[in-house]
């Protein structure tokens, strides 16, 4: 949901698996909802990894491990690949994550996170493996994500990196604005574009 981003400082939930696809984040059978009920999607986040076929929680999965909690999900590279389902971003937001840290994200999912006020933070492979190690050593490891200065800090080791964030998207995140608010103000420009283009195509 729309929220103003500033600084997120939290312990993390580690998921050191590469290529996590959106079918794992939210399986297709949960896509039949016709409303944007983030709580419903959050309850089913990583459904088939979190619960056994009989519906009982799988204690070996990190989301069922009480030592790991927080606003930040830390995942292996190529996070969110596969299906474009925005339900995956709704599930992550609905579970309560505000930030996802990985060394790379699939393009569509990255946009979906940003459009749902979940911040994808891309860090180097070295920073990521270092962070996984810190969390394994001490599950209460705190990470500080500073949006204004675009820096991410592993407070356990002091390791710090800056991350990319489009200036427009940064403005939106810090002011709780979305792209539709912007686009709805552009209809004159769109109509001019349509007229000019029609003339080019039909000359």
């Amino acid at each position, binding site marked *: 949901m729309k929220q103003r981003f500033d600084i997120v400082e939290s312990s993390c939930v580690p998921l050191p*698996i*590469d*290529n996590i*696809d959106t*079918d*794992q984040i939210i*399986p*297709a*059978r949960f*896509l*039949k909802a*016709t*409303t*944007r009920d983030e709580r419903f999607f959050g309850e089913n986040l990583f459904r*088939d990894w979190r619960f056994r*076929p009989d519906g009982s929680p799988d204690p070996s999965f990190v989301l069922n491990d009480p030592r790991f909690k927080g606003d930040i999900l830390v995942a292996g*590279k*190529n996070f969110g*690949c*596969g*299906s*474009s*389902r*925005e*339900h995956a*971003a709704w599930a992550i937001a609905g579970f309560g994550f505000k930030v996802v840290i990985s060394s*790379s994200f*699939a*393009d*569509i999912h990255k*946009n*979906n996170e940003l*459009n*749902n006020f979940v911040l994808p933070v891309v860090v180097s492979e070295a920073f990521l493996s270092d962070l996984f190690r810190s969390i394994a050593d001490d599950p209460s490891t705190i990470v500080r994500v500073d949006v204004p200065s675009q820096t991410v800090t592993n407070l356990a080791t002091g390791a710090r990196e800056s991350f990319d964030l*489009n*200036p*427009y*998207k*940064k*403005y939106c995140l810090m002011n709780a604005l*979305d*792209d*539709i608010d*912007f*686009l*709805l103000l*552009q*209809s004159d*420009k*769109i109509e001019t*574009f*349509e007229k000019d*283009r029609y003339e*080019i*195509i039909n000359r």
Partner: protein
Amino acid sequence: MNTLFDKIWDSHVVQRVDGGLEQLYIDRLYCHEVTSPQAFDGLRHRGIRCFRPERIICMPDHNIPTTGQESPILDPVSKKQVDTLSSNAAEFGLTHFGVMHKHNGIVHVVGPEKGLSLPGMTIVCGDSHTSTHGAVGAVAFGIGTSEVEMVLASQCVLQQKPKSMRITVEGPLGKGVTAKDIALYLMSEISTSGATGYFVEYSGSAVRALSMEGRLTLCNLSIEMGARGGFVAPDETTFNYMKGKEYAPKGEDWDKAVAQWRNLKSDEDAVFDKELFFDATLIEPMVTFGTNPGAGIPITGFIPQGYSAKSLSYMNFHEGERMIGKPVDYVFLGACTNGRIEDFRNFASIVKGRHKAPGVVAWLVPGSWAVRRQIEEEGLDRVLMEAGFEIRQPGCSACLAMNEDRVPPGKYCVSTSNRNFEGRQGPGSRTILASPLTAAAAAVTGVITDPRGLS
């Protein structure tokens, strides 16, 4: 010195926004029932209408059953989602090809086959396989539901322009090697994130030689390499395919359109951000052994060392094993990847004069009603029926198992679809991706079989 991607993309930029994003005008938006309801809710919440309803086409495909479409959908949740698309289309004045409509089918099969997706267009849909439409020479890519709402509201999306990549595949394809095998080969070489951040132009003699159906399969799988989209510059194959399509330009408009489409190519001296070259003669029929589409090997190959233990354990496969001879429980022919007429011709060419193996469950699901009608016109239905197969009604079906076509836990399915992710074809299902020829070979033998030995 522009790439074709630059030409199409740049000609659709309404304005550049501070920070480098671009407001991109969209010529065609497709909506299916799964990723659109929340977007229409957004319009209602804001009290606005669609900005350009004539550019938007709706059709249900993900949830619909593949038998008995004449009757109401039994699953009440699926029915509600399908009905919601119908009522949203009516409320916002949009074209809707509902269940049993003669134009209904999988959105990525219907768009090109009806001439709704044309060369030079920008095309989006809340579906990652929108990359399929790139085969007609368009810039087509998948978006999320918030972005669907943006297009409904303004016919635009805000995007960071992807980088450009050219993938050239040169040389003749070997016997039994199809567009599906090219794509699985490319993924096995560059991984499922090898093209992340890029838009891909496919070129080279092997790509030029592909039929339109083959190009649609190749472009469909662009997303599985991480690419935003992939396309093939339009040529005579494209124009011949498009001519006479229901929504394609007609008469003088057609001639004018083709004259413009002939300019849709990358300049000789165009510079790509990345270029990759592959030798088509090295490609064999491919199968996957793991739980992402990049885990492909030649069908004659062995499962390599060092692959994710979690994936192999899920598949109950082991390092060093051969794929040939592994038992198969289910076969699925269909999906936006391989649900077109050529795919059914290929499947039929293998099963003709043979019979479905006992114990194999086969789902043959055309990508659209038009495909199914053509199967009947060509008499393929008789060939398939004589071999013990039945043809179902169109839809996405077992590709993602949102309807009843679900592979049970632990069972193996040779599937012509696009993803072998854990649970993709039903919780616990085990998917082996392959071409229609390889799927047919498995269907008649009951085990993974090299189709080159059967034709």
